[in-house]
């Protein structure tokens, strides 16, 4: 365990630690472009040069391993001059088109120029002209003039996505990033090259010109695209309503989690946020009047729902009611659903498993075939001793008649196909649909209750490994929509039960006390990196 001294601060680190990693632990900033912890070391940008005692030349901090007694300086005049010199070299051929560059505001050229450069241009020659605004894939656009040739993207497609679409062509001052012949940057992880690009060379076509980054507010969340539960940051524009066609969520960015997704996220997850601000969002309760769905207020809707549930129960008993929950819901939502329907109303026909006719595939990296974020949590909470199997009813195509169906976030028409879905729904006298977006299934319901999306709620998801992870609301629920657990609470209160939860945190406290698998968990323990359920088996993909 060597001990290193950086800028008079000492630290003992494991063998093999590089100076840049040690400095990070000491909160000393060493500028870098090519170094990325998730990629191999290129050492080519020469920004991380540091002075090491007893070494005549400056050394790159990214590639120099710490040895015992090493004394490093990152602030000496020699280092500053070298770093400033390198920055000058990077900028001489940079087009300085920050005004039209989406990276402006989170660009490391800007950041380091303000911190380490601040020199006036000495370039008296014309800048080298290169390819600009070149579409290199479905999600990525390339501007080779802005490129600092750090090769992060090239190493990413070599080492992480292993798809080898891009490379550096030509040499010397003419070097530039290009697509390999007959290649398109269209792998499922292509969006990550935008994240790792320290400058504006690779920008996101989806985000292009939609919003300036300094307008964005950020909230830590978890991707709802599949059961991997990649950690993300929901970046929303809450300041300038006229940007991005009025969209609030502007983009999702991966958030580092060593245990789950590291720095990466797949494109399916990255661009899977569009439904949040889609015009199809349900923003008020609706009730079927004839063929049309007519709006009504929440208290009427809750009374209508509770009245129908009571009626169905009185007429046909608890067995005539079926509750279909969804693995898209948070643990808190699911818990309140079970508590109200299962415990308080005594309905034991609760399930969330709907067979999907669309076969979805996983890849060998992050994406999983199960495209629901909380299947594991739903199993732990809803199947806790329950033996009801919805799938049998659906597949048996029986003519048995039921009283009421309460459907959460499940587009049956999409999953089962139009005919089977209609046949199944036709078995029920009354259908209540609770969900965030309008779809064909919601159109078939008698009563529609608007629920908030995952970006608008606090709560937890449990990924396929049983890792419980926090999600934070980045924006307010749209219109009159409510987090699913609040919808259920409203129904429960209308039905005369005391559901006084103020927040998702309070629900989770009770969840942890009630559901055995969640025993001992709390939001504090989960923290930002999540926490695994004790002794659980991963759900098969």
């Amino acid at each position, binding site marked *: 365990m060597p001990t290193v001294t950086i800028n008079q601060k000492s630290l003992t680190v494991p063998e093999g630690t590089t100076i840049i990693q040690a400095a990070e632990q000491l909160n000393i900033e060493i500028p870098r472009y090519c170094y990325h912890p998730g990629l191999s070391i290129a050492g080519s940008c020469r920004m991380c040069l540091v002075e090491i005692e007893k070494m005549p030349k400056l050394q790159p901090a990214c590639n120099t391993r710490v040895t015992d007694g090493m004394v490093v300086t990152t602030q000496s005049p020699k280092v500053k001059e070298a770093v400033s010199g390198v920055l000058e070299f990077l900028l001489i051929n940079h087009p300085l088109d920050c005004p*039209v560059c989406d990276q402006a505001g989170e660009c490391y050229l800007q950041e380091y120029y303000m911190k380490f450069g601040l020199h006036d241009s000495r370039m008296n020659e014309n800048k080298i002209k290169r390819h600009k605004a070149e579409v290199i894939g479905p999600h990525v656009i390339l501007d080779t003039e802005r490129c600092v040739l750090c090769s992060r993207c090239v190493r990413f497609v070599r080492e992480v996505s292993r798809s080898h679409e891009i490379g550096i062509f030509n040499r010397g001052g003419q070097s530039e990033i290009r697509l390999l012949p007959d290649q398109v940057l269209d792998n499922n992880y292509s969006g990550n090259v935008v994240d790792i690009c320290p400058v504006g060379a690779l920008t996101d076509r989806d985000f292009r010109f939609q919003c*300036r980054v300094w307008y964005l507010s950020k909230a830590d969340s978890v991707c709802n695209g599949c059961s991997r539960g990649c950690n993300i940051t929901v970046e929303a524009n809450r300041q300038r309503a006229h940007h991005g066609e009025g969209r609030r969520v502007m983009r999702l960015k991966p958030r580092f989690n060593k245990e789950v997704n590291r720095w990466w996220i797949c494109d399916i997850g990255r661009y899977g946020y569009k439904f949040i601000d889609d015009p199809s969002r349900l923003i008020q309760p609706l009730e079927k009047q004839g063929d049309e769905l007519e709006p009504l207020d929440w208290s009427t809707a809750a009374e209508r729902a509770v009245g129908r549930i009571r009626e169905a129960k009185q007429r046909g008993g608890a067995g005539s009611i079926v509750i279909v929950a969804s693995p898209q819901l948070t643990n808190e939502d699911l818990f309140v659903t079970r508590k109200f329907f299962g415990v308080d109303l005594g309905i034991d026909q609760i399930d969330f498993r709907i067979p999907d006719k669309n076969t979805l595939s996983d890849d060998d990296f992050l994406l999983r075939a199960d495209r629901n974020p909380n299947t594991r949590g739903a199993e732990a909470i809803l199947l806790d001793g329950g033996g009801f199997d919805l799938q049998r009813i659906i597949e048996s195509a029986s003519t048995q008649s039921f009283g009421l169906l309460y459907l959460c976030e499940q587009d049956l028409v999409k999953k089962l196909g139009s005919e089977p879905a209609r046949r199944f729904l036709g078995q029920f006298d009354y259908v209540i649909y609770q969900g965030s977006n309008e779809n064909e299934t919601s159109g078939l319901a008698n009563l529609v209750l608007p629920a908030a999306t995952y970006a608008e709620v606090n709560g937890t998801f449990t990924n396929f490994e049983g890792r419980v992870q926090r999600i934070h609301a980045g924006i307010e629920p749209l219109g009159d929509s409510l987090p699913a657990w609040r919808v259920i609470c409203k129904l429960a209160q209308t039905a005369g039960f005391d559901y006084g939860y103020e927040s998702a945190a309070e629900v989770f406290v009770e969840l942890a006390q009630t559901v055995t698998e969640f025993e001992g968990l709390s939001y504090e323990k989960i923290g930002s990196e999540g926490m695994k359920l004790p002794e659980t088996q991963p759900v098969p993909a």
Partner: protein
Amino acid sequence: MNRRDLNFAERLYLSEVFKGLWLTSGHFFSNMKKHLARQLGFTRIEKGAVTFQYPEERRPFSPRYRSRHRLTQREDGSPRCVACMMCETACPARCIYIVAGEHPDPNIEKYPARFDIDLGVCVFCGFCVEACPEDAIRMDTGIVEIAAYSRKEMIYHIEDLLQ
């Protein structure tokens, strides 16, 4: 603040009142004299007032004067603005609304699909001009009479601002 103690005469107030009246009436009479003289045709006598008769007589604006905004143009008449949102960001009144669009020329890339200034909200601080990296917005039109019959008409669109 150190105040001087008033002496007796000053504390009496009356003498000071008369001093004041002397001064102001002095102005009155000398100005009246000039006014009368000019009315009678002695135009070489200097004017009795320092004011300008605004709509007819206009003082030249200082070059730094901040009047109504305009968007500067490229040689082909398109706006120089690249929709970088710097002015929108700098604007303390939040009266600038820009929506960016994709320009077919890769050397321009970004152009303002919409550029509105709500002059009813604008505080004429000139921050937008300072913030502009492209010299695309200026406040040098010399137009100061900005009025409309509705709030909506006070919103100037890109076509108005380009003129």
